[in-house]
């Protein structure tokens, strides 16, 4: 067991021999389960939840393996292993998902135990990236770096990851269960669109306390989560979550999968009655068994590597002069960086949304490059965002231009974060067995149409989200412009929603009118954006113009004949 803190991976929990033993046992277990499936001892119906618990779906063209990136954090060594898996077992590609994971679209069942073994070799796994269990806990992509952060949420995210791993009571829930945790007053995790959203901040004694939101979600029935509890003490975190999930497991609907999420239960009971049940469960529990002792938290915290943030005194000045000297670099800094808590550092967002490209798709070579850049510029640390981009969290300001030049050279320097081109899209009907329509081609056409960076910056902040079906993996309800693919007699149509947001101003987008045929959709959105440019006040973002004027002003633009 390594206890040398100098070798701990930055920004994530360092596995020890016990954790590695667990992972190798889990791989052996899956290998044995695959063996029984192939031998006919397990039916497909029985095997399905077992493979889903290891992230393996059967999609349209092949199996898809979703690898967990706990709270979005990974190291360069892990990224290189993912590149190797892409080359060896897939078709040279990986795809970053909207829940900070990465998935491979062309996997063979017979290869999967070997792939999981390779992942275990770099302390990675696919545990609970699918199935009716507690999924990967998501987190702020600027955690531990952001200037506005009150508390690094990754320590508690890791504790929740461990607690939920092969949880004996909660592995066959009515439906999947998603937890997000934020430590910033600016919600970057969509806390109120999760089954449980935790907003952490320091309590009176300096220990973390949590505001607990419950019953949010998108999908068929989009609902904004409600506050269940203020200032939950850290030591009660696990006991309280046990109580919430236990109430859900006992009372959540199991007769209809579309009504099985906790949000439906919370709505059916009403938040007061739901809270009563949770409180009754909580009161009965032997809290000593579940107590999250500060010593436990600190033990986990001690397994996290801390970056040595040393920058030259003139780092910020150097960045200023670099920006003045190069307008293109200056634009990228404006759009693709985020303020760091240390004045000599900055967080850089690598856009995985090239103009006209597939949102979130990376080639094996790009993965290797990102790994190399992480080593050279950010302590070997890589973050996957729920916007399907990549963040290098701790870049020295005086080295930012060198980073940008290398990104540019590899086609990874697109300056579009938070702009029209930064589209969130699910894989859609090109890959997904559940989809009704293709998401990616719409994203590609929009992104190509608005490729001009000046135009994008002029349009300003605009979140476009595309889902290929009502399950809403593209979070269309949360987009300023949401696009939902629907099936009409075997053909693709797209329904537009306006005014959604997953941030502090959380809102569910409203349907603007009848669905459009595929070849009308991109033009309709272009007219929508043109209308905004005409109607906006000075400095007003799309979402604010929409909120000021309402849907009517935009409806004509969408449905007006040319």
């Amino acid at each position, binding site marked *: 067991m390594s206890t040398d803190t100098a070798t701990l991976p930055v920004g994530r929990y360092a596995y020890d021999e016990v954790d590695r033993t667990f992972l190798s046992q889990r791989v052996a277990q899956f290998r044995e389960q695959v063996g029984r499936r192939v031998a006919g001892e397990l039916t497909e119906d029985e095997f399905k939840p077992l493979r889903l618990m290891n992230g393996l779906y059967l999609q349209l063209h*092949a199996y898809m393996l979703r690898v967990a990136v706990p709270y979005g954090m990974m190291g360069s060594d892990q990224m290189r292993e993912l590149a190797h898996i892409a080359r060896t077992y897939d078709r040279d590609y990986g795809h970053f998902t909207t829940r900070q994971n990465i998935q491979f679209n062309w996997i063979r069942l017979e290869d999967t135990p070997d792939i999981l073994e390779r992942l275990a070799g770099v302390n990675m796994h696919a545990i609970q990236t699918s199935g009716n269990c507690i999924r990967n806990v998501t987190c702020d992509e600027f955690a531990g770096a952001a200037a506005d952060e009150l508390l690094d949420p990754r320590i508690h995210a890791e504790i929740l990851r461990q607690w939920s791993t092969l949880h004996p009571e909660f592995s066959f829930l009515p439906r999947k269960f998603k937890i997000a945790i934020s430590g910033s007053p600016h919600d970057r995790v969509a806390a109120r669109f999760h089954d449980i959203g935790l907003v952490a901040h320091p309590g009176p004694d300096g220990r973390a306390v949590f505001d607990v939101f419950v019953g949010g979600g998108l999908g068929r029935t989009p609902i904004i989560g409600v506050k269940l509890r203020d200032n939950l003490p850290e030591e009660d975190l696990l006991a309280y979550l046990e109580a919430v999930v236990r109430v859900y497991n006992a009372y959540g609907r199991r007769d209809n999968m579309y009504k099985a999420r906790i949000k439906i239960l919370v709505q059916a009971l009403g938040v007061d009655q739901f809270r009563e049940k949770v409180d009754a469960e909580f009161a009965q529990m032997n809290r000593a068994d579940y107590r999250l002792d500060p010593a436990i938290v600190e033990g986990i915290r001690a397994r996290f590597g801390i970056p040595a943030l040393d920058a030259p005194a003139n780092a910020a000045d150097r960045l200023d002069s670099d920006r003045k000297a190069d307008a293109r670099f200056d634009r990228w800094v404006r759009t693709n960086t985020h303020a760091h808590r240390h004045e000599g550092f900055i967080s850089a967002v690598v856009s995985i949304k090239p103009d006209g490209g597939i949102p979130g798709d990376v080639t094996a070579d790009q993965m290797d490059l990102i790994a190399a850049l992480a080593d050279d510029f950010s302590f070997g640390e890589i973050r996957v965002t729920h916007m399907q981009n990549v963040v290098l969290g701790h870049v020295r300001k005086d080295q930012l231009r060198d980073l940008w030049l290398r990104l540019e050279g590899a086609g990874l320097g697109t300056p579009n974060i938070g702009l029209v081109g930064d589209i969130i899209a699910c894989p859609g009907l090109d890959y997904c067995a559940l989809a009704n329509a293709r998401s990616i*081609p719409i994203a590609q056409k929009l992104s190509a149409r608005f490729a001009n960076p000046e135009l994008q910056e002029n349009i300003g902040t605009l979140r476009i989200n595309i889902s290929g079906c009502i399950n809403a993996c593209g979070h269309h309800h949360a987009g300023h412009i949401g696009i939902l693919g629907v099936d009409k007699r075997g053909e693709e149509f797209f329904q537009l929603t306006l005014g959604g947001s997953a941030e502090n101003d959380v809102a569910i987008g409203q349907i603007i009118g009848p669905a*459009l045929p595929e*070849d009308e959709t991109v033009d309709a959105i272009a007219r929508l954006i043109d209308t905004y440019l005409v109607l906006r006040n000075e400095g007003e973002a799309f979402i604010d113009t929409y909120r000021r004027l309402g849907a009517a002003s935009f409806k004509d633009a969408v449905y007006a*004949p040319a």
Partner: protein
Amino acid sequence: MPVLQYRSEKNGCAGLARAPIYSSLRQLHARCLKGIGSEVDVRNNRRDMTGASVITANRLLDGRIVWLAPQGWSEAIGQARVFDNAAVEDAIKQAKAAADANTVVGIYGVQLDPDATQITPLTVRERIRAFGPTVHPDFAPVETPHVH
């Protein structure tokens, strides 16, 4: 490179990367619906009373899409055996009961486009299954005579 035979290329809805057509939505709807005909369920094996279908599944070991051929399962829809819809339910039952049924997952029938010259599914979903993801033409299934 295989060509995706989207219905849109014939009747002007749901096309790939085509020049935008500005006509009234209602006209477009009408044209699409007229082109498609009666209800087709893309998710399961319900289909028209008339017309023809092929039978498909995913192979257990590698998940690849396969089509029921005169002998065994083929990766190429061009090799698929075409059934009249009056006979396809029985054929699906037989396929599910066959000795090699445990080598595939999720056997169901796919309605074919009566207007297509080659074996072509009617729905976008099944055309993507048959001819590969539209966003990666290089990932289209390769036509081989090999039958498993």
